[in-house]
């Protein structure tokens, strides 16, 4: 990230954080806990004001919030290795690297990072496979991965993710998925996976094309009131950060990292129930 962008990101931290603490998808619940609004629409519980720190986990999402080049086009994977190795305390459950593209016949950055950190590498393609290079998001995690699961809903939004036993107040098998959204149709596809109960204990972290953000927010409010949607971004970028999860999770906070030229969002989740 260039200095100007980096400064912008830092200045936006406050607003991003504030945006995250709310529920962008309007809560249609009446607060009586019966799971329905007076007009019969399904609802979800409000996010409690107090955070139970025992049930918080984080995901680091490395992204330029653009889609015109690989994240590692001008960066060495060693920067990511150093970042991961420098972490202490409650480590992120997973590290996601947007646009860590799969170039046929060349070692993928995730393979290199995983090798040097002792983590497990995965790659989520975000477009159809090409003979030469395929766009996508890499994942590395220290956890033992029980599943690397995937779906390609209508609209061709690729979404894949890992299921890992995250250490919270108890160990919880948690799915961490990623996707890139360029259309409202793709959002519908992803949202239908969650509302259809095909996925029920995990979160999606990815990026969304900025121009469709308002339409997606409207669609989420009108048609997917049982999901929690969060979006936040940097004005200069073509994409915004995108988080979608079922009622059992809340996105508590974002932090923007720009250190060492390695732009990154740290997303804080709480497992509510």
């Amino acid at each position, binding site marked *: 990230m260039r200095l100007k962008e980096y400064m912008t990101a830092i200045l936006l931290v406050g607003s991003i954080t504030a945006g995250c603490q709310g529920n962008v998808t309007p809560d249609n619940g009446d607060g009586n806990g019966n799971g329905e609004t007076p007009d019969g629409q399904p609802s979800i519980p409000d996010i409690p004001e107090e955070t139970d720190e025992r049930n918080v986990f984080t995901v680091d999402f490395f992204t330029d919030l653009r889609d015109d080049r690989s994240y590692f086009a001008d960066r060495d994977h060693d920067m990511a290795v150093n970042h991961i190795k420098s972490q202490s305390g409650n480590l992120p459950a997973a590290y996601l690297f947007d646009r860590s593209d799969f*170039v046929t016949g060349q*070692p993928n950055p995730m393979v290199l990072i995983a090798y040097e950190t002792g983590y497990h590498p995965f790659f*989520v393609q975000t477009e159809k496979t090409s003979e030469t290079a395929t766009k996508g998001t890499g994942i590395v995690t220290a956890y033992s991965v029980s599943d690397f699961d995937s779906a390609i*809903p209508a609209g061709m939004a690729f979404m894949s993710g890992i299921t890992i036993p995250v250490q919270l107040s108890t160990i919880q098998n948690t799915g961490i998925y990623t996707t890139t959204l360029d259309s409202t149709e793709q959002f519908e596809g992803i949202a239908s996976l969650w509302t259809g109960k095909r996925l029920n204990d995990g979160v999606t972290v990815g990026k969304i094309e900025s121009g469709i953000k308002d339409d997606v927010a409207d669609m989420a409010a009108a048609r997917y009131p049982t999901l929690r949607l969060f979006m936040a971004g940097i004005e200069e970028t073509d994409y915004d950060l995108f988080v979608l999860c079922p009622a059992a999770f809340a996105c508590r906070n974002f932090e923007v990292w720009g250190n060492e030229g390695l732009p990154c969002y740290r997303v804080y989740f709480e497992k509510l129930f």
Partner: protein
Amino acid sequence: MKRITSILAAFLLMAGMAAAQEISLRVMSMNIRMGGEYADYKSAPFSELIREFDPDIVCCQEVDYKSARNGGYDWLGNVAMETGMFPYYASRPYGSGEFGVAILSRYPFFKAEKIISEIEGENEDRPTGWIYINLPDGNTVRVASVHLALQSSQNTTRHIADINSSLFAEDEATPCLLVGDFNADEGSGPIDYATMKRWQDIGKGTGKTIPADKPTRRLDYVMGYPKGKWSSTDYKVISRPDLSDHCFIVADVVCSPD
């Protein structure tokens, strides 16, 4: 987590990505013998061989991860870096490290699973791993790497049944390859069981695979599902006694649609 496998085939069909045309792949099977013992546990000789044949998929068996005997070495990670392929490891704990089967893919895989079969009477639990690949031509194929139970013919058969039940529990639509060390001879009960209903022995009638210096038995196979849809245009048995007690297989396989 509720798996989304059951809807996968439907989505693939919607996206026009399921097998609609002929699938062609070059697959390689490598039992590397106790984590690569013959090669002093180093990856480079294996990577050199893989590069020579330039396969789309490599299925490996007896792969160590940071075990005591290999000196804490990440064999698969090294092969992945040396070949430019993407790895998937299905393992079980092994001392201070791990042991199991692995798959290396030229193309991204969008889904991966593993099972660990506990077969009564076996000395060890046995992992099996598989991946789904969307090929550049739009077809989707599943590839599994196996290393079957060996204490008795019955155990080997039970192991095949266990793998079948997991592989086909939610997906009978996607063409699949089952590649590796079956620990069973051609014409034996386990191979007859495997090929009776589900699987086709694509390399039927090809050479023996063990011991590598003078093979007398065929234990390593490339099998295809659905049965009767697969053929091979080239099927090589590679003898490298400097690398393993098993011969390796390099097969150009084709799955033809209805």
